[in-house]
């Protein structure tokens, strides 16, 4: 076939096409591999413990008797601890981000130090926060003991840097023309920020926060140090309550020598995964909804 000047054949060189193909294949394999891994875990868990799934699992409290053993107190414990951690971390995180993005003014030593610290905090291993919590909150100056309150503060410290970083991203993504437009109408800086910048940044912040919180639900190492690995047969009643959390309840059952309890641990893992999936799904739906909705 003769190549005329109107030929629509690709003129990309063979070499480039091979590279493209290799790269695409590599990407596809990575995605398939990671998905396969997740599905394999779920499949194994379900195969192992699927028959146990029933409301009894979430209504029964921990017990040494397999017929009446469940996860109620640990699920409630996770909800309480993570709930209060969110309550502590979100206002502080959002205000810090707002300060850094909108009110700190020019970069100076103070803001540079603050930024460096936030970056560092985000990289600190979770167990270190557990140690700090043990030394300064559960014991030491605060002496709050192994309580929901202590645990919530530790988890709040853990998610705080993430929330700050996410909120700053969301604020930076707001078109500067909104603020310019508002200022040109005689709005004060605060009016422009509170009426346009903050509302526009809410969806991004909310989505990011849900993802950060869903990480916190699975976190067990720091709370291990705060006495969460105990046999708790009651739901928390307040910040001063003792508590346990779902990941550690799973761990406790899994380390039991009796096989039935190990199967129960698998069932608990399925519950934990279901909670995580639900939260991530909610974050995605929230993002899609706010993208479709144009007005703030």
């Amino acid at each position, binding site marked *: 076939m003769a190549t005329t000047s109107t030929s629509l054949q690709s003129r990309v060189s063979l070499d480039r096409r091979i590279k493209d193909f290799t790269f695409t294949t590599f990407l596809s394999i990575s995605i398939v591999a990671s998905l396969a891994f997740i599905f394999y875990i779920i499949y194994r868990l379900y195969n192992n413990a699927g028959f146990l799934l029933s409301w009894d699992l979430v209504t029964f409290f921990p017990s040494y008797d397999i017929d009446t053993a469940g996860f109620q107190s640990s699920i409630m414990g996770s909800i309480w601890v993570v709930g209060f951690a969110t309550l502590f971390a979100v206002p502080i995180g959002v205000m810090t981000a707002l300060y850094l993005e909108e009110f700190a003014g*020019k970069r100076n030593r103070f803001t540079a130090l603050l930024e460096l610290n936030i970056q560092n905090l985000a990289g600190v291993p979770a167990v270190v926060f557990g140690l700090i919590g043990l030394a300064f909150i559960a014991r030491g100056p605060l002496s709050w003991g192994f309580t929901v309150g202590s645990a919530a503060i530790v988890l709040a410290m853990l998610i705080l840097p993430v929330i700050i970083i996410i909120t700053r991203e969301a604020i930076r993504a707001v*078109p500067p*023309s*909104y603020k*310019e*437009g*508002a*200022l*040109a*109408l*005689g*709005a*004060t*800086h605060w*009016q422009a920020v509170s*009426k*346009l910048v903050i509302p*526009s940044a809410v969806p991004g912040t909310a989505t990011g926060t849900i993802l950060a919180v869903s990480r916190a639900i699975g976190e067990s190492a720091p709370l291990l140090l705060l006495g969460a690995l105990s046999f708790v047969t009651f739901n928390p009643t307040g910040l001063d309550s003792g508590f346990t959390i779902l990941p550690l309840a799973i761990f406790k059952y899994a380390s039991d020598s009796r096989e039935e309890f190990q199967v129960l641990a698998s069932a608990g893992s399925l519950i934990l995964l279901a909670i995580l999936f639900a939260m991530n799904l909610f974050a995605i739906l929230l993002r899609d909804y706010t993208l479709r909705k*144009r*007005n*703030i």
Partner: protein
Amino acid sequence: MSMIFRQSQANKVSKEEPKKGSSPMNSSATRKPSEPLKFVDPVFTLKDVAVSYGDFVAVSDVNMQIPSHDITAFIGPSGCGKSTLLRTLNRTNDLIPGAKVHGSLFYHDADLYHPSASAVEVRRRIGMVFQKPNPFPKSIYENIAFGPKVNGRPKKSELDDIVEKSLKSAALWDEVKDRLNESALGLSGGQQQRLCIARSIAVEPEVILMDEPCSALDPIATLRIEELMAELKKQYTIVIVTHNMQQAARVSSYTAFYVTEVNLTSDRRTGKLVEFNETKKMFSTPDDERTEAYVTGKMG
């Protein structure tokens, strides 16, 4: 530099009725070419104004007056400081870190850059329409209501009136009156720009600054905005930056032409005002040959 000062008494401008359609006290017929145009009660009086960004002087030695209730156009090649100068007229340039204004810049008899002058109050009186239409991600109604709301606590009925009046002044009412509660982002580009004009009218400014307001619009939308400006100049003073010579010739009564001149001390270029004259004269028999070269397309 701190940006926002509270409103101060010192900046209150006397509300005396300005002379509509001011004509120059020294028209080009009676004036030597070197003499600047003078007006009765000009809105802006610039004396030796220079604006710098850090060490870089973007524009300098600007001496001119801007008349009230008329349209003044700024023209000149890219980078000569038209936008910079326009932004200094309502202190929007304050928001750029490192930007600094030198010389004296009076709004009527009030010093715009006096330490006690509030930039927020200045911007309420001197509105701005940007090159790219920038409606807020709110309903059409809320876009217009935004300015009145941040400047006071108007009642719902008052707001309704303001919204209708502003949209009518901006020749947009008929097109949007049935969908005031729909998102402003759903409007066409030309409609969005008229919305932005309506939005600035809603706070009842005295001056509207427009930085290339039609450069993102098609010829028909452009024509509508130009008709609108001709209507608006009865009530407002308009300063417009444009790259479109015909537009400057069509809409404005006075035109200021700027160029960039090479600095002797650095390789950066500084903007200078070459000529400020009646638009008719600028486009027929300008005093400066550089103006003639530019408006006839031989330069820039």
